[in-house]
């Protein structure tokens, strides 16, 4: 940000942790933070996908016009004069608890353990249901298959605590073109181990998905 003259009309001035930053039109708070090398942890966010807002690790505290609000920075758009705090007590409280939940949700994932340790969380008070689980149901694989690949071979099944990653009708499906996008976007590597529960017999692909 060399001078005020260089500032385009559509850019937005605000602060993150007291540092003056400038967002281009359409940028989210997270994108602005990344452009300014300010670290905000994320798991479900991926630059190639529409933000989904499920992991809630990227929450920040926003102060504006005397009001404060904690919200997901991957979805929130900045406004001029906004004060964004990435390490306030309220934010850290959410983050610490989410990381504790993640340690119980996917205890087998080294990535999650490392991320939690970086934020000082090494143990969890939540009950561990499956010690071998790595999937955190962030939704990246579902989104990439739907938005980027366009075949919708993956979906979420059930609801609430029973929610899990499934294929339509819970059988390996021939829609899957075996591109591996889901595996490459998975933040914990969980999908690599279950790719064969998704991918059907490629030689039997028919219909619309065959066109791929």
């Amino acid at each position, binding site marked *: 940000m060399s001078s005020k003259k260089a500032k385009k009309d559509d850019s937005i001035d605000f602060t993150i942790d007291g540092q003056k930053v400038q967002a281009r039109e359409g940028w989210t708070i997270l994108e602005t933070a990344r452009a300014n090398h300010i670290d905000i942890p994320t798991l479900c966010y991926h630059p190639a996908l529409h933000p989904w807002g499920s992991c809630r690790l990227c929450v920040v505290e926003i102060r504006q016009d005397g009001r404060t609000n904690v919200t*997901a920075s991957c979805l929130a758009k900045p406004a001029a004069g906004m004060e964004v705090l990435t390490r306030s007590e309220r934010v850290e409280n*959410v983050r610490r608890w989410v990381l504790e939940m993640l340690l119980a949700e996917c205890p087998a994932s080294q990535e999650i353990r490392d991320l939690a340790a970086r934020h000082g969380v090494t143990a969890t008070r939540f009950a561990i249901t499956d010690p071998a689980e790595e999937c955190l149901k962030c939704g990246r694989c579902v989104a990439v298959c739907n938005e980027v690949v366009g075949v919708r071979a993956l979906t979420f099944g059930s609801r*609430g605590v029973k929610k899990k990653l499934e294929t339509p009708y819970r059988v390996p499906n021939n829609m899957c073109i075996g591109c591996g996008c889901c595996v490459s976007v998975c933040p914990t590597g969980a999908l690599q181990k279950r790719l064969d529960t998704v991918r059907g017999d490629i030689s039997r692909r028919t219909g619309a998905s065959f066109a791929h």
Partner: protein
Amino acid sequence: MKKIMSAAELQDLSQTLLAASDPDQPVARVCLGPGCLALGAEKVSQAFRSALKKSNANFKVQPLIKTTGCHGLCSQGTLVNLSPGNFMYVRVKPEDVPEIVETTLVGGKVVERLLYSENGTRYRTAADIPFYRAQQKVILKNVGTIDPLDIKDAIMAGAYQSMAKALLEMSPDEVIHTVEVSGLRGRGGGGFPTAYKWRRAAENAQEKPGPVFLIANGEEGDPGAFMDRAIMEGDPHAVIEGMIIGGYAMGAHQGFLYVRHEYPIAIQHLSVAVQQAYALGLLGKNILGSGFDFDIQLNRGAGAYVCGEETAIIASLEGRVGEPVVRPPYPVELGLWGRPTVINNVETWANVPHIIRLGAESYAKLGVPHSTGTKIFSLVGKVRNSGLVEVPMGISLGALVEEIGGGVPGQAHFKAVQTGGPSGGIVPYELKDVTAEAAEKKTLSVDFDSMARTGSIMGGGGMIVMDNHDCVVDLARYFLRFLEEESCGKCLPCRLGLKGMLGFLDHFAKGEGTPEDIDALESLGQALVDGSLCGLGKSAPNAVLTSIRYFRDEYLAHIVDHKCPAGVCKDLISFSIDPETCDGCGLCAENCPEECITGKKKKLFTINPAACIRCGVCRDVCPVNAVHVA
């Protein structure tokens, strides 16, 4: 039936129908509300019809048997209202019907034994009963008096007159302005100013020309709440009329009624009402010759509590999985199929015709400033008179619970109220409002802002009254379990946090844990409030957080003393038989499912604590109250 093409024709129809009806005609209005239906109201109405057929009485005018929506005093069902005389009969059974027909419909006299009695006084008409006396029926005016399946009955009661006035005499902007001045706030729980939503949607539609959609939120999933159900079942035309007026104000031509699948009667009544309104030309093209078109489509929910959240409703209507998405953008900007959409609660829509009818200023005089109008509550729990009540906003909690509710049954005393369903809080009954002006009142003022200051919410209108035999830990646990089940599972804090919170409470209910765990639970609750994606997760910890705030001692009693003061949490209580009072009847031993009570007739009985499952059957059956809980 011929279509109505102008306001004059609507007026004519109403007048003709009124002229044709005989004011002397005896009418029996049988309540077919959910409470009465469960108590056999269907059989009562059939009994009336067959008793009339059998009766050889010489009627001047054949009596009319009308089945209506909820009369309100659900704990006393089946309720029957008879005119002339306006007698209100309670706890009517099919076998009482021949006597009612002979004595009241034929003879015009009252059947004393069927009247409602309280403290030795018998009350003849509903208006005399204390339960109804303190109420103010505006929205429920026609619920319980009209036949919801007959549009003619509704028109006689004045339905669609407000719509005629709005469509033919007012400009769309005047309608929005009227709603604005009336001060109407969303009745679904949030209390958001309705006119603000309407105006934003209308403005957004002007910026990006195209359709605007309206949705009536009838996904009333809170346990113990039946306000919207009563409106949809008892006066479906009020909702339809409100939506047409709203549609005219915002330039919308399509409305959706989103009603939960578990309300089959509401769905039936609404679909009949919509059909009849179409047949009369009150829906469809060129309504009343005004040139305004409006269509309504009925959609059923599929049993997900989270589909009461507005973005989840939109997802569900679009055919996607009913999961919320982040707001902003709000539905008034980007709603159904990307178009500005206004979602109001059923009760909010039903308020609209009354605002037009009464005028904004008169409506605003109801209630208190910033919370105008009346609010419908479903008053349940430990009160003598549970049921559906409508009161002006700002009524004191004491008046609502004691005057209308009739106090707590038995020897117990009031402890707390839980408002706003699972997302609401538990506040002590004695709580005074924090503002000085409100604190002068006997108890808390029931309005949006006062309720919010206590940490609870006004919510949709569920009000559960608790006495000293109810445990706050247990109730908070019940609501958490409900929400854990109903969480969509999209965001981590809600999906796993609720499970974690429930884990803490499960420990507490067993007397496990440390006082530090209470602080940890509070901090986890705050993480859910701040971190969750939608309103369900953000408000889910309310019951836990408010109960810790006001009843920390009760939590500590569980953890430190390993006692449940209310005698509810099974792991912390034991049943014993008082040797002084036991008369040796043996009923407890006969009924004990575990057969762990032993003794000889006429001698003392004892409970084997090792085998006892603390179900409480012995306490319930003991005729001399010799079974104690500690």
